[in-house]
C-alpha cells in the first residue's frame, strides 16, 4: 500500500475534525438570524450525529474482516448493531428524553432518587466506555501499521492524543456538526471505493465463488506470518517456505506439507502458487492472547449467534455516548423521529462492509492466515484496482477509518470524562474535566498495549454484552415498571453487569482456552441479561417498601407527551 496519499488523507481528516469542532457554531450578527441561531437541532442532523458517533472501528473495519474470515454468519453483527436502535426506538428513546436526564447516571438518579444507584451506574458507564475505547485504539494502531508500517502502538497513541487534546481544550464545542460530518465522511469513504471495487469485480468476470467453496489464491502471493499459528490442511499442499515450519528451519525451499496440522512460527514467509486453496489458520492453540472468540463460535455456533444477537440488540441503549446525544432532541417525539432516521442511516451504511468482506475473500484470502483480517477494507482498493486510482481510493478509506476512530473515541471520552468529573473526582471545574479526559483515555490506552490481538468487532461485542446486562434492565424496568426499587436496581446492575464484566475480563485474560465454559464466558449476554432482569425484579419485589416516593409522577412525565402535560397543567390551574 502506498502511504504517500494515505498519510495526508489521515492528516486532512484530523485537521477537518478539529476545525469543524472549533468553528462549526451558528453565529448571527443581525436580528433576522436570531431565529436561525437559536433553532434546535432537527432530527435528521441529530441522527447523522448519532450515526457518526456510533459507527466505530468495529463497523468500519471489523465487520468486513469477520465476514472475510468466517463468512455470511457474521452478518449478524451489522444486523444486531442496527436492530439495537429498533429496541431503543420502541422502549427507550422518547421516555428517556422526557426524563430530562443527560447521562445514564442522571437517569438512575431521576428515576430512583438514589445517590448510591447513581454512583453504581456511573461506574458501569466508565467500565463500558473503557471496554469500547479499547478496540478503537487497537484499530487505529492496526490501520497505521498497514498504511505505513509504523509500530502497532503508534496509531492508538495518535488517536488518544488528538482526542484528549481537542476534548480537553474545549475543541468539541459543536459536537453535533462534527459527528454529522464524520458520518457522511465515513459513508463516502466506504461507498465510493465500493462502487469502483464492484465495477472492477464486474470487469473481472464477476467470479461468484465467494462463500460456496474454500477460498483460493488468484495469483502467486507471499504471506508473512506475524504471529505463530497452526495451519489446518485438508489436503496436501506445496508452498515455498523461508522460516520455521513444524520446528524445522527452511530457507526459500519448496516444501510439500501433508494433510493435518502444521505449526508456523512467527516471521515465516510462505509463498503460495496461483490456484492454491487458502488453508485455515487456528489461533486457538498458540496459548497467547490472540485467542479469537471465533474458536468457540465454531464449536457452538447457535449459542454464540444468539449471545451476539442479544448483546447487540439490547446493548445499544446502554452505550454512554449514544444516550447523551438524545438530550439534543428538543422533545420526546423528536427523539423518536431521530431514532427512525438513525435506523435508516445506519442501515444504509451497513450494506457496505459485507461487500468488502465478500470481495476480500476473493482478492485477499491470505488475510485469514496473517490475522490481519481487519485490514481487508484498507487493502482491497490497492489490491483490486491498483495504480494511482487504487492509491487514492485507499487513501479515502484510510481517512474514513480514522474518522471512525476519532468520532467514536471522542464521544466515548467525553462521556467517560463527564462521569469521572461529576461523580468520582472531588470538586468540579474546567481543570478537573481536563484531568477526567486524560484519565478516561489513559486507562484504555494502557490496556490496549497490554491486551492485544482480540478482533476489533469481538471486543466491541464484549462492551455491548456488559451494557446489555447492566443498563438494559435499568432502562427498560425503570421506564416500564413502577415497582422498581433502588436496592433492586443496584443489585440487578451488580449481578447482571458484574457477571458479564467478570466473564469479559476472563475472556480477555485467555481463560479458559476452549470448551463449553469458554463459550459461556465469551458470549455472556445470553445468561447475564436474564440474570440482571431477574435479580432486579426479585430484589425489587423483596424490598417493596423502598419504592421511591413520587414514582407515579415520574413515570407520568416519562410517558406523557409534552403538549398533553401542558394541557393537564392548564386544567389543574383552572
Amino acid at each position, binding site marked *: 500500500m502506498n502511504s504517500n496519499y494515505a498519510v495526508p488523507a489521515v492528516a486532512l481528516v484530523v485537521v477537518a475534525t478539529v476545525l469543524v469542532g472549533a468553528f462549526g457554531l451558528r453565529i448571527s450578527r443581525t436580528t433576522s438570524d436570531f*431565529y436561525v441561531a437559536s*433553532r434546535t437541532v432537527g432530527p435528521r442532523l441529530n441522527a447523522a450525529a448519532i450515526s457518526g458517533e456510533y459507527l466505530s472501528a468495529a463497523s468500519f473495519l471489523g465487520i468486513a474482516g469477520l465476514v472475510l474470515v468466517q463468512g455470511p454468519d457474521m452478518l449478524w453483527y451489522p444486523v444486531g448493531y442496527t436492530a439495537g436502535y429498533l429496541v431503543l426506538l420502541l422502549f427507550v428513546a422518547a421516555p428517556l428524553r422526557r426524563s430530562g436526564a443527560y447521562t445514564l447516571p442522571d437517569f438512575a438518579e431521576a428515576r430512583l432518587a438514589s445517590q448510591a444507584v447513581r454512583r453504581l451506574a456511573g461506574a458501569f458507564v466508565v467500565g463500558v466506555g473503557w471496554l469500547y475505547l479499547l478496540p478503537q485504539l487497537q484499530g487505529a494502531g492496526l490501520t497505521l501499521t498497514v498504511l505505513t508500517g509504523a509500530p502497532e502502538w503508534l496509531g492508538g497513541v495518535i488517536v488518544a492524543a488528538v482526542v484528549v487534546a481537542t476534548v480537553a481544550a474545549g475543541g468539541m464545542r*459543536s459536537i453535533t456538526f462534527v459527528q454529522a460530518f464524520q458520518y457522511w465522511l465515513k459513508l463516502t469513504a466506504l461507498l465510493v471505493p465500493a462502487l469502483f471495487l464492484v465495477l472492477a469485480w464486474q470487469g473481472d468476470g464477476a467470479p461468484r465463488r465467494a462463500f460456496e467453496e474454500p477460498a483460493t489464491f488468484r495469483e502467486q502471493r507471499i504471506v508473512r506470518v506475524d504471529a505463530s499459528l497452526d495451519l489446518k490442511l485438508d489436503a496436501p499442499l506445496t508452498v515455498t517456505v523461508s522460516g520455521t515450519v513444524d520446528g524445522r528451519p527452511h530457507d526459500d525451499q519448496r516444501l510439500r506439507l501433508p494433510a493435518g496440522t502444521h505449526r508456523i512460527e512467527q516471521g515465516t514467509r510462505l509463498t503460495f502458487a496461483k490456484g492454491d486453496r487458502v488453508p485455515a489458520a487456528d489461533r486457538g492453540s498458540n496459548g497467547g492472547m490472540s485467542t479469537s472468540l471465533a474458536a468457540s463460535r465454531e464449536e457452538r455456533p447457535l449459542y454464540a449467534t444468539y449471545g451476539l444477537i442479544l448483546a447487540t440488540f439490547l446493548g445499544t441503549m446502554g452505550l454512554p455516548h449514544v444516550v447523551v446525544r438524545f438530550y*439534543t432532541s*428538543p422533545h420526546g417525539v423528536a427523539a423518536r423521529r431521530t431514532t427512525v432516521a438513525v435506523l435508516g442511516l445506519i442501515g444504509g451504511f451497513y450494506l457496505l462492509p459485507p461487500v468488502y468482506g465478500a470481495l476480500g475473500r476473493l482478492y485477499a484470502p491470505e488475510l485469514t492466515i496473517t490475522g490481519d483480517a481487519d485490514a481487508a477494507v484498507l487493502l482491497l482498493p490497492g489490491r483490486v484496482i491498483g495504480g494511482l486510482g487504487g492509491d487514492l481510493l485507499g487513501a479515502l478509506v484510510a481517512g474514513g477509518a480514522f474518522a471512525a476512530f476519532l468520532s467514536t473515541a471522542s464521544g466515548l471520552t467525553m462521556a467517560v470524562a463527564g462521569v469521572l468529573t461529576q461523580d468520582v473526582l472531588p470538586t468540579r471545574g*474546567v481543570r478537573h474535566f481536563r484531568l477526567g479526559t486524560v484519565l478516561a483515555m489513559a486507562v484504555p490506552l494502557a*490496556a490496549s498495549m*497490554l491486551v492485544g490481538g482480540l478482533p476489533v468487532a469481538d471486543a466491541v461485542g464484549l462492551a455491548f454484552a456488559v451494557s446489555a446486562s447492566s443498563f438494559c434492565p435499568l432502562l427498560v424496568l425503570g421506564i416500564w415498571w413502577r415497582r422498581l426499587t433502588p436496592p433492586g436496581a443496584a443489585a440487578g446492575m451488580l449481578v447482571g453487569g458484574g457477571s458479564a464484566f467478570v466473564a469479559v475480563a476472563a475472556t480477555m485474560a485467555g481463560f479458559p482456552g476452549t470448551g463449553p465454559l469458554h463459550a459461556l464466558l465469551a458470549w455472556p449476554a445470553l445468561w447475564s441479561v436474564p440474570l440482571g432482569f431477574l435479580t432486579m425484579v426479585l430484589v425489587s419485589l423483596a424490598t417493596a417498601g423502598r419504592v421511591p416516593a413520587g414514582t407515579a409522577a415520574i413515570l407520568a412525565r416519562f410517558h406523557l407527551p409534552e403538549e398533553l402535560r401542558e394541557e393537564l397543567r392548564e386544567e389543574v390551574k383552572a
Partner: protein
Amino acid sequence: MSGFIAGLCVAILPLLAAGFWLGRRTARPQNLGGLGTPVEHATFQTLHTASLAAPPLRAGLTEETARKSARRLRTLLGTDALCLTDQEQVLVWDGVGDHHRTEIMERLAGPLESGRGEAFRLTCDAPDCPVHWAVVAPLTVDDRVHGALVACAPRESAVLVRAAQEVARWVSVQLELADLDQSRTRLIEAEIKALRAQISPHFIFNSLAVIASFVRTDPERARELLLEFADFTRYSFRRHGDFTTLADELHAIDHYLALVRARFGDRLSVTLQIAPEVLPVALPFLCLQPLVENAVKHGLEGKTDKSHISITAQDAGAEALVVIEDDGAGMDPALLRRILAGEVSPSGGIGLSNVDDRLRQVYGDDYGLVIETAVGAGMKITARLPKYQPGVHSASRLTGG
C-alpha cells in the same frame, strides 16, 4: 502472560470497588473504645446517639421521621417504651406495651392543652404488663404545642421525668430548625414569584412610547413591535412552572432585544453564538433576560456612540456555559460585590443579585454568577447551567425545530 495479568487486574477492580463501598458503609464512628475515662466515654456515646436521631427530625414531625428517630431517642433515655405523638394521634410506639396507645392519647389532652409535662400511672388489665408509669413531655415550636414525647417505665422516677424533659426540649429545637428550613424555602418561593411579576416598569413605558412613535410613520413596524411586546409579556407573565428551556428564554430575549433595538436603532449591535446542543437545557424561568437587560443598560449608559453585546451559549460536557458580555461603562467591583451581598439595592430593574440568588438556590453555591468587570472596561457575566439537576424540569415545549 502480560495479557493474563491485565485481565486479572480488570477482574479485581470491581471487587476492590465493592470492598471500598462496604468499608464506607460499615465504618461508623461507634468504635470509640480507648477514648478517655468511662464518664467521657458515656458522654461521647450520648452525643453520638443524639446526633444520629437529629437528621430525620430536621424534616419535621411526621410518622416517617418519628419512626426513624424513636429508636435512637429510646436508647438515649434508656426506657422500656417511648412514644411520639402529634396533636391527634400516636405517630410511633417504640418498645413494649403497645396496647396503651389509646389510653395515652386520652390522657394527653391536658398536657397538650397546657403545654406542661406530667407523669401518671397507667391503668392496665394485663397482669404481666411491664410498664406502669408514663412521663409526658410536650414538644413545642415557638410556644405552640406540636406533640408530645411519652416515656414509659415500670416505676415512677424523678430522673426519668427530668431526662424526658431535656430530650423533649432537644427534639423541640430540632423541630424549630425544621420549621425554619420550611419558612426559608417558602421565602425563596415567594421571592421567585415576586421576581417573576417584576419586569421593569420603565421597560413597559419605553416600549409603548417607541411603538407609539412608529404608529403614524410606519404602521407595519408598529404592529410588529406590538406583537413582539405581546409575546414578551406573555412569556414574562406565564404562571405555570418555575423552569423554562434555554431555547424559550432566548426567544424571549429576542423579543426583548427587538423592542430595545427599535428604541436605540444602530447604537446597539448584538452577536449571538449558540451551540444547538444546549438549547434543551432547563433553567430557572427569566434568569438570562435580566442579565441581557443589565448588559443593555450598562452598554448604553453614559455613552453616545455604539455599543456591542455578545451572547454565547457553549456546550461544556455536563454543563452549558452562557456568557453575556458588553463593552459599556462597567462597574466598580467593590460596589458590585456589595450589590450581590444585598447591602446596596441596585438602581431599578431586576437585579443581578436576584438571578445570582436563584441560581445558587437551584443548583448549589458552586453555580453562582461569575462577573468580570472594572470601571470603563465593560462587563462579562458567566452562568454555568448543569444539563441535569434533580427536580429541574422545563415546563414548556420547545419552540422551533
